[in-house]
C-alpha cells in the first residue's frame, strides 16, 4: 500500500487562548478526492494554512508526502509548498496585473521542481488552459479582464501545473452560479485524476459532495469545536 499523501494524528492548534483545531486522525491517500464539509467558523482556514505549511501545529503529527512539516524550517516549508502543493481559493486567486499565462506559470518561477515536471512550462500551461476550456485568445489578457468563472479555471490551471501531488481547494466554486459550478468541478476532478494528484476540496455546500470519493465533515473531525 502506497504511503498516504497526508497523515495527521492528534494535531492541535490554537491562537493563543482558545483551542481552534484538534484533529485526532486524518488521512488522504493518493488519487483520493476528498470533500471536506466546512462551514465558516469550523477552523477551515486554519486547517488549510496548516496543510500548506504556513502555520505550524502546537502539537501532534502532520506528515505530507513523507515530510513532517512541523519539523521543517519556515523556508523549507515554503519550498515544500511551492514544490508539492496547488492551492485554489474562493476568489481573487490571480495577480491582477499579470497575464493569464504568467499567472499559470507563477509556481514554476518559485519551484524548480514544478518547472522540471512541467517539461516546457509554456506548453504545459497552454495544455492545461485548453483542457480547462479557456480560449487561447484570453491567455495574453490581464487576469483581471476575465470573468470570475474564467479566473477560477485559470487558478485551477495554476494549481495543477508541474503536477503537484496535492491540490487544496477552498470553496473555489462559491462565486460561481450552479451551471458553472458543475462545469468547474468536472474539469477540476478530471484534471486531478489525470495528473494523479490528491484533492482536498473544502466547501460549506454539501450538494457538491456527491462527485467525490469520500466526504468528511470538519466540525466532526475537529474536537475543539467551534472556533473563530
Amino acid at each position, binding site marked *: 500500500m502506497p504511503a498516504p499523501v497526508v497523515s495527521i494524528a492528534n494535531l492541535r492548534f490554537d491562537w493563543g487562548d482558545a483551542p481552534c483545531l484538534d484533529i485526532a486522525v486524518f488521512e488522504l491517500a493518493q488519487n483520493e478526492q476528498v470533500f471536506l464539509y466546512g462551514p465558516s467558523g469550523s477552523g477551515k482556514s486554519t486547517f488549510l494554512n496548516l496543510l500548506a505549511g504556513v502555520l505550524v501545529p502546537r502539537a501532534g503529527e502532520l506528515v505530507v508526502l513523507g515530510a513532517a512539516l512541523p519539523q521543517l524550517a519556515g523556508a523549507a516549508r515554503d519550498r515544500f509548498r511551492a514544490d508539492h502543493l496547488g492551492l485554489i481559493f474562493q476568489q481573487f486567486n490571480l495577480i*491582477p496585473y499579470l497575464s493569464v499565462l504568467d499567472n499559470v506559470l507563477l*509556481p514554476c518561477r518559485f519551484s524548480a521542481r514544478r518547472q522540471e515536471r512541467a517539461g516546457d512550462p509554456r506548453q504545459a500551461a497552454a495544455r492545461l488552459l485548453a483542457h480547462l476550456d479557456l480560449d487561447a485568445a484570453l491567455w495574453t489578457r490581464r487576469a483581471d479582464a476575465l470573468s470570475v468563472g474564467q479566473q477560477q479555471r485559470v487558478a485551477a490551471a495554476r494549481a495543477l501545473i508541474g503536477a503537484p501531488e496535492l491540490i487544496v481547494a477552498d470553496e473555489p466554486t462559491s462565486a460561481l452560479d450552479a451551471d458553472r459550478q458543475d462545469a468547474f468541478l468536472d474539469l477540476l476532478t478530471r484534471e486531478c485524476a489525470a495528473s494523479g494528484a490528491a484533492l482536498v476540496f473544502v466547501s460549506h455546500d454539501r450538494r457538491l459532495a456527491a462527485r467525490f470519493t469520500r466526504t468528511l465533515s470538519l466540525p466532526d473531525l475537529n474536537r475543539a469545536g467551534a472556533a473563530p
Partner: protein
Amino acid sequence: MTPPLVRLAAQSAWNRRAALSLTVLAVALSVMLLIGVERLREQVRGGFEQSVSGADLIVGARGSPLQLMLYSVFRIGEATHNMQWSSVEALAAHPAVAWTIPVSLGDSHRGYPVLATNHAYFAHFRYGDRRSLALAEGHAFDGVFEAVLGAEAADALGYRLGDRIVLAHGSGESRLADHADKPFTVTGILARTGTPVDNTVHISLAAMEAIHLDWQGGAPIPGMQIPAEYVQKFDLKPKTVTAVIVGLKSRAAVFSVQRWINDFRAEPLMAVLPGVALAQLWQAIGYGEKALLAVSALVVGVGLAGLVAVVLAGLDQRRRELAILRAVGARPRDILTLLTLEGLGLTVIGALLGFVLLTVLSLVATPLVEARFGLSLTTGLPSVHELFLLAGVIITGFVASLLPGWRAYRVSLADGLTPKT
C-alpha cells in the same frame, strides 16, 4: 529565485504607475536640484579659476587681498585705493618681472564696467587654459577715444564697429555724471571668453585720464570744460591705476617679488597670488555652499520619504497579492525582497531621470546662462563626484525601502494564505 522577483516587482509597479510616477518625478526633481546645485557650484569655481590663468601676482594699494582680486579681475565689489604710476614703473623695471598689465577701473557704460589698460593687456592677459585674448573684429584702441568691447557687452547692447558710446562716471547711477562731451568710437570687439572680460568695455589709460581732465573728486569742476579736441595738449600719462597684473620670468621668484612689493617704500602696496586669494574666497563662501547642499540633500530626503510613504500606503491594497505569492511558494523573505526592490527600483529610476532632466535643462539653458553669467553649463556623463552623490541617493533609497519591505514581511507572516482584509 531573484530574477522572477525583479520582473514581478517591475510588473507590479507598472500596474500602479499612475500613483508611483508622481513620487518618482518628485525624486527626480530633487535629484536634479542636488546635482544641479553641485554642478553650478563647481562651474562658478571653475569660472573664477578660468578668469585669470597667466598672472603670477595682482598688485594694488594695501588693503584686503580678496577685495583687490574681486575688483580687478572679476569687477565685483567696491573700488580699492589706487596706486601711483611711479610704482607701476618701478615694478615693470624689476628684473624678475616679465610683463605688467596696469588696469584702471571705476567708470561704466550702461552697467558694463570700463577698464582702462594698455596694449600689454591684449598681449599678455591669459584666461582659461592659458589662452590669449583675440579680436573677433576690428583692432585694439589706437587713438584716445577708442574702445574695445567684450563680446557680451557688444552683443547685449547691439554695438558694431564705428558706433559711438558715452561712458558714465562711476557705476552710472546718475545721468548727470557722465562723460557725454567725450564720446568713444568702438574700434574692436573681442571674441567670447566666458570670463568677465566679455562684459568689459576696454579703453586706454590715456583715455581714462582724458575724460577726467576737467573732473576732480568724482565730479566735473564747475565752469571748466575741456573739449575733446584739446585733450591732446595735456599730459595724458596716467597718475594712478587701480591694480597691476604681473607676469614673472620664472614662477620660482613669486615669493621674493611678493616680499619686495609688500615692503615697497614709496607707498603701501600688496601683491596677491590669485590662487591664494581664490582659496580665501572659497573659504568665505564655503558655508553658503554647504548650506545650499544641505538644503538640496534635505529635498532629496523629502522626495524619498514621499516615495516610501506611497509604497507603504499601497501595501494594504496588496495583501491579497502577497497572499497569492505566498500560496505559490514565495517565502516571507521573497516578499521583503519584492517590496524593497520596488522602492530601490523607483529610486534608481528617479535618480537617473533627475540626471536626464538636468542634462536636458542644461542644454536648453546653456545659451541663456552663458550670456547672462558667463558660465558654461557642462552636460554629459556624471563626474565621479556626482556619481558619489547619485550612489548616496540610491543607497538612502534602498535603506528607506527596507521599511515597506519589512512591513510587508510582517504582514505576509501574519496573513499567511488568508489576508485579513
